């Protein structure tokens, strides 16, 4: 036996030496990632997982969470949300602003700030970047985020010119913006990536290659991109030219791009990551740890009914399906991440007129798990449709493990409460979108996250001709309220109109709210001031520091 052991050991070492030689030949000499935990006492280094490669760091083309997270660290717009998710004057590159009486003209006064190449950041850089986003030849997907500006939509659709767009640099430090209608969410939107400034010389040098490599960019935010090894890691470093650099304590942020849930968890346990979002299956593992936290995202999940379907055109049937779900049980036993049962559309935390919209409009419009009422609605609906019994229903959902798990839970609840047979159709992401667009479904599980910090982002999508209204819901009264609210300069009346609109929506129930999404994470105790915004970037790291590691 001993001889055997020796042979194995010898062979293994031989093979490893051989492989080492081969590895040496292929010329890999990049820095090691995700194993950096040999830091001294107070070294200001944060290690996080980004989860994926950012598709692009071109601010006018980025649309996804990963890119937005990085861009929020390395670029800054006119405003930056503070630690509590609020906007205050002077929080971004604009040190002050004025808004005209009619709410249409915004004048921003820029602070003295520099790009990471030492050049001053001017109002012209903003005008240039915004017009670039709107230029049809740029092909920017999020150009519509600027459609609040006068002439923007026309220019982007090839019906107007760049000169007619309502954004103008009056001088180096003054930017004037004219909106087509009052929009209280506009200030917040100027913190969004599509609104980030761009240094003209840099764009003219790199063109479509802007943001493909750290050297093809200049930065205006708290950090700069030091290194970017595709599919591997991104290293950020403190920006020495940032105007508020005295309040930035982190020197380095290491982002890995681990996609596998099991690897993610093991990397946290071994200390390679300082904080991770907990994948669904691992919640129980951390739930009782002091490092466990969760927070509500500005995202609502709902059943979307096909309002053109021969069954679900009936409001009572839609209500029966909505009311028969036990949300309390679902979030506790299935989602398990601290999500909140939803009996309305606009998530808590979205501002209304004076405070929280949810508290102004009321917590909800129906009772959770109201099986008796649901059965009544079902009978009424069947009568109206002239049916004695519901045929089998098709429920469309995604092909991820989570989506399937959720679908099975809902399927069982419907079966128990209403005795209805529901068949799950689980398809790939783009196939699902295609089926929704074509109305080739009966019920689909869908979610919507805020684009900006205002109830309107959850409401105007249900207007008759909105491209996102794949429920094919149409109610002229609803459309009228939304259109009025959109141009109403009287913010109190506007808020009232949105409350009325949500009420109509819940009366007709083209969609049945299920839960407001929460996200669970673990963070090591030595990480301080790491903030988790409710929409947009995954983290806000400007004020983060390490203490007592």
């Amino acid at each position: 036996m001993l001889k055997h052991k020796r042979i194995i050991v010898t062979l293994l070492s031989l093979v490893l030496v051989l492989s080492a030689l081969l590895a040496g030949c292929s010329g890999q000499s990049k820095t090691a990632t995700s194993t950096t935990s040999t830091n001294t006492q107070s070294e200001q280094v944060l290690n996080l997982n980004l989860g994926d490669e950012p598709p692009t760091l071109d601010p006018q083309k980025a649309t996804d969470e990963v890119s937005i997270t990085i861009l929020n660290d390395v670029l800054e717009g006119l405003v930056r949300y503070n630690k509590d998710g609020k906007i205050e004057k002077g929080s971004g590159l604009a040190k002050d602003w004025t808004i005209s009486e009619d709410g249409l003209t915004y004048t921003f006064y820029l602070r003295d700030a520099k790009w990471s190449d030492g050049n001053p950041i001017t109002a012209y850089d903003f005008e240039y970047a915004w017009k670039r986003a709107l230029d049809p030849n740029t092909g920017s997907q999020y150009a519509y985020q600027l459609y609040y500006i006068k002439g923007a939509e026309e220019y982007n659709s090839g019906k107007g010119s760049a000169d007619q767009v309502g954004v103008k640099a009056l001088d180096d430090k003054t930017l004037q913006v004219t909106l087509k209608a009052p929009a209280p969410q506009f200030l917040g939107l100027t913190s969004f990536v599509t609104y980030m400034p761009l240094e003209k010389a840099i764009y003219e040098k790199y063109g479509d290659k802007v943001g493909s490599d750290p050297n093809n960019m200049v930065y205006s935010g708290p950090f700069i991109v030091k290194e970017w090894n595709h599919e591997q890691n991104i290293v950020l470093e403190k920006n020495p030219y940032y105007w508020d650099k005295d309040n930035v304590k982190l020197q380095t942020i290491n982002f890995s791009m681990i996609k596998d849930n099991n690897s993610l968890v093991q990397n946290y346990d071994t200390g390679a990551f300082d904080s991770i979002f907990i994948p669904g299956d691992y919640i129980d593992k951390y739930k009782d740890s002091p490092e466990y936290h969760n927070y509500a995202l500005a995202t609502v999940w709902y059943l979307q009914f096909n309002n053109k379907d021969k069954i679900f055109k009936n409001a009572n049937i839609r209500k029966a399906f909505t009311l028969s779900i036990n949300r309390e049980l679902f979030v506790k036993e299935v989602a398990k991440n601290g999500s909140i049962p939803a009996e309305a559309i606009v998530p808590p935390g979205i501002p209304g007129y004076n405070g929280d919209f949810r508290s102004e409009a009321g917590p909800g419009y129906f009772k959770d798990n109201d099986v008796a009422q649901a059965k009544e609605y079902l009978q009424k609906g069947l009568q109206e449709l002239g049916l004695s019994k519901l045929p089998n229903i098709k429920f469309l959902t995604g092909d991820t493990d989570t989506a399937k798990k959720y679908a099975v839970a809902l399927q069982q609840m419907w079966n128990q409460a209403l005795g209805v047979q529901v068949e799950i159709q689980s398809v790939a992401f783009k196939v699902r979108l295609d089926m929704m667009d074509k109305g080739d479904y009966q019920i689909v599980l869908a979610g919507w996250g805020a684009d900006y910090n205002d109830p309107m982002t959850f409401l105007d999508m249900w207007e008759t001709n909105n491209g996102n209204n794949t429920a094919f819901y149409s109610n002229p009264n609803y459309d009228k309220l939304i259109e009025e609210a959109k141009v109403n300069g009287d913010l109190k009346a506007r808020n009232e109109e949105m409350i009325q609109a949500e009420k109509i929506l819940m009366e007709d129930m083209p969609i049945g709210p299920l839960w407001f999404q929460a996200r669970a994470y673990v963070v090591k105790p030595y990480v301080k001031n790491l903030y988790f915004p409710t929409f947009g970037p995954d983290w806000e790291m400007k004020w983060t520091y390490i203490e007592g590691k």
Partner: protein
Amino acid sequence: MLRYTLERTMYMIITLWVIVTLTFFLMHMIPGDPFTSEKRVPEQIRQNMLAKYHLDKPLIVQYGYYLRNLLHGDLGISLKYLNRTVNEIIANGFPASFQIGMQSIILGVFLGLILGIVAALNRNGFWDYVSMILAIIGRSVPNFIIATLLQYWIASKLRWLPVSGWGTFAHTILPSIALSFASLSIISRLMRASMLDVIGQDYIKTAKSKGLSSFEIIWRHMIRNAILPVITVLGPLIAGIVTGTFVVERIFGIPGLGKYFVQSIYNNDYTMILGTTIFYSAILVFLVFLVDITYGLIDPRIRLAKGGK
């Protein structure tokens, strides 16, 4: 021989053209386009984007564009990674996949051969059973299970090696081992059978009766003859492993090409689907070609039968 090689090269090009054409038209039948997303954008913006990437032209015109660029070696811009070309992405991702794949092949072949030889020489003995158990594990346990177990025990519990990541040799060890089991099992079984076949041959008896040392008999007469069938499976095996590293890359966070190959289809990233398909097909076709040429060199009967004079 030259004519045979030329002929085979022609076939190779035709094969690749058929693959490109089929892939091109099939992928356009996938529902959706590269720019559909959960949040629908205004129609005008979609049109701007389609125009920017020439997706608004008729399909046959797009096909023409693509072939023309392909002849210049240009695989186009990725439609998901909007400012990176497919050429850049392949050049960036393939070396990692290649390194892991080759290390695992070397490990698998080396250990597989030794296990096969030892098993044959100890038929029904201890090492024969060890080799059989390893072969059964390698054939029946998927590499992602092995990968997860290695990651849990060696990296997370014992902390001998990094859990994941890339950059140093230590990062490559676990993924290489996880990937090597499949080739190890194939090679060891094949080598064992082939050795047993050779052991029964008359010339081994002759060698024994000549009084050669057993080392010399095994090395010069058995292994040399038995290894031929093993070499012929190497081509497809290498191609399979180098192109099939997706899951293991994902588990260990390796910046390889596997992800792009698989995900491009979900993203309707047309240029990336075509680029990676062409690239991998070219590798496969070329390895099959190499094996054919090798056959021809080793065994003249094959060359003749296929018309080479």
